[in-house]
């Protein structure tokens, strides 16, 4: 192809110095074209992310130091919003509820591990049917899920209280009773995400070589010992992934609370609402119901700090218990 490079490297260097830069330039031009294409291909998503995601994050940070007037204008108020926030009972309650959701929601993980382990039994019939049934709530519209559960939880006509009455228990008005509302919502959250977690755990378990279990069985290890010594350690990356995802998801809980607990006037009419209000719901309320956007921005910045902190703690603890094979 190129006649100039047929000689040895010595020839080129001593006799004809010019071709080397020429060749370099040609390759560079090719690289330049490659880079130009790359930037062009990245441009749509890059611009979209910059305009609708990156710049907005910075703006929200800025807004959190401003106060908004009724017509959208805003002025700098320094740390005022954060000072108010630190003493605001409503915010502190929402924060406490959100953390409670997150911690209680983690109870779904052992449940998912148990079902995945049952589904992972060799030559078990109907695995894909079970998996599909457990997965159904994952794909169903959250609003529809919340509607059904609100109906099931209904204190007067609900199916749950009817079933309880059969065994002589008088059930509460689940989501209208401050004592039970939070737990009732957590249960739905776990119910919704169970199938998703099972799929991830099952995939993780199926990647563990059968031989490990056979060897352990020969050494006399029972099913429980095998689960503790083989399955759990080798499943730890999936466990870590699911727990990080579960924490991030629970901290942003909104749909369930919005549909089951209400918003605006209807939320204020529910005596249990202060017990189920979450940070994101409060953010929504402040930003788009009472139009207090500066304060809302401060609330959501506090959420960001919470998420970053909890995730960082999880990554820090990861070294102690997660084994990558």
């Amino acid at each position, binding site marked *: 192809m190129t006649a100039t490079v047929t000689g040895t490297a010595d020839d080129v260097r001593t006799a004809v110095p010019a071709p080397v830069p020429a060749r370099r330039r040609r390759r560079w031009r090719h690289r330049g074209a490659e880079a130009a*294409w790359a930037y062009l291909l990245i441009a749509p998503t890059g611009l979209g992310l910059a305009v609708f995601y990156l710049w907005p994050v910075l703006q929200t940070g800025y807004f959190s130091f401003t106060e908004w007037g009724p017509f959208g204008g805003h002025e700098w108020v320094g740390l005022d919003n954060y000072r108010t926030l630190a003493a605001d009972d409503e915010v502190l309650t929402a924060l406490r509820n959100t953390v409670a959701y997150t911690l209680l929601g983690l109870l779904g993980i052992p449940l998912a591990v148990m*079902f995945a382990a049952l589904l992972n039994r060799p030559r078990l019939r109907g695995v894909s049917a079970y998996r599909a049934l457990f997965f159904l*709530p994952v794909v*169903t519209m*959250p609003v529809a899920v919340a509607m059904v559960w609100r109906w099931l939880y209904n204190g007067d006509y609900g199916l749950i209280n009817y079933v309880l009455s059969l065994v002589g228990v008088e059930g509460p008005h689940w989501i209208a009773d401050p004592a039970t509302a939070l737990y009732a919502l957590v249960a739905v959250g776990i119910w919704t995400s169970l199938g998703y977690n099972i799929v991830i755990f099952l995939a*993780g378990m199926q990647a563990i070589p059968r031989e490990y279990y056979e060897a352990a069985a020969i050494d006399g290890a029972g099913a429980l010992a095998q689960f503790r010594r083989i399955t759990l350690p080798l499943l730890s990356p999936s466990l870590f*992934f699911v727990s990080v995802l579960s924490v991030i998801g629970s901290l942003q809980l909104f749909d369930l609370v919005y549909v089951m607990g209400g918003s605006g*006037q*209807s939320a204020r009419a529910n005596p249990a609402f202060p017990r189920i209000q979450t940070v994101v719901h409060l953010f929504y309320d402040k930003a788009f119901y009472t139009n207090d956007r500066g304060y809302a921005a401060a609330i959501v910045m506090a959420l960001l700090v919470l998420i970053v902190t909890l995730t960082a703690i999880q990554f820090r603890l990861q070294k102690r218990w997660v084994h990558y094979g």
Partner: protein
Amino acid sequence: MAERPAAARGGRTATHVTLLIGAAVMVGPFLWQFLTSLKTLSNAMKVPPTFTPDWRWSNYGDVFELLPFGHQILNTVLMTAARTAGQLLFCSMAAYAFARLRFPGRGLLFGIFLSVLMVPPPLFVIPQYEIMADLGWLNSLTALIVPGLFSAFGVFLLRQFFLGLPKELDEAARLDGAGPLRIYWSVMLPLAKPGLLALGILTVLWSWNDLFWPLIVNTDPEQMTLSAGLASLQGQFQTDYPVLMAGSLLASLPVIVLFTVMQRHFIQGIAFSGNKG
């Protein structure tokens, strides 16, 4: 095997019983929803509850009177289709560049993309809303669609797929004189079908079920999506529950059908994003 047959059989029965109970808890609410959707209001409010439906299929028609349901179905379909098409195109372009092309600033740019992935959505929402308001896009299909065309997650997922394809492919195509665009379109895209399918399915699922953004930008009932429209009925405790159940079922049905048909790809997509993302 090392297991004793009798013990294994006993364990197997216990396994199935546990799984069946679990499955019943998972499916029960949907059956109750279906049963309720076919009752009259007075039958639905009976104490104790009855298990006999009145076969009132007209409840499904009544949803269209309770809400501008037809408009909302159309809005949801168009929003989901546009977002999915946009993400598949834009994300695959960027993912191909990040995975297969060399250019200055690649690592830095990808890092910036990843950082978007880690920020919780509520942080974007106020400025996004302001942009929509400034452009006069509130209460329109455009507001529902535009921010959803771009996804850092999609770029990340597809990049993983493109990285997994053998190096020889583009080298061979390059020797044949194909440029980056040609390689992207005719070599990489056809090979990335499983990845595109996974991203497509996940985008349909998230878009169809999305509540937060549609709720904020479109407040006119005719411009709402299904999930926002149904949610707008919350708080009206006098609402006809059977009709509400019918509406909920109708709204979630398309994604449930899609899931049933493409179950294997769904599960693979989830397992893939779960174990590598």
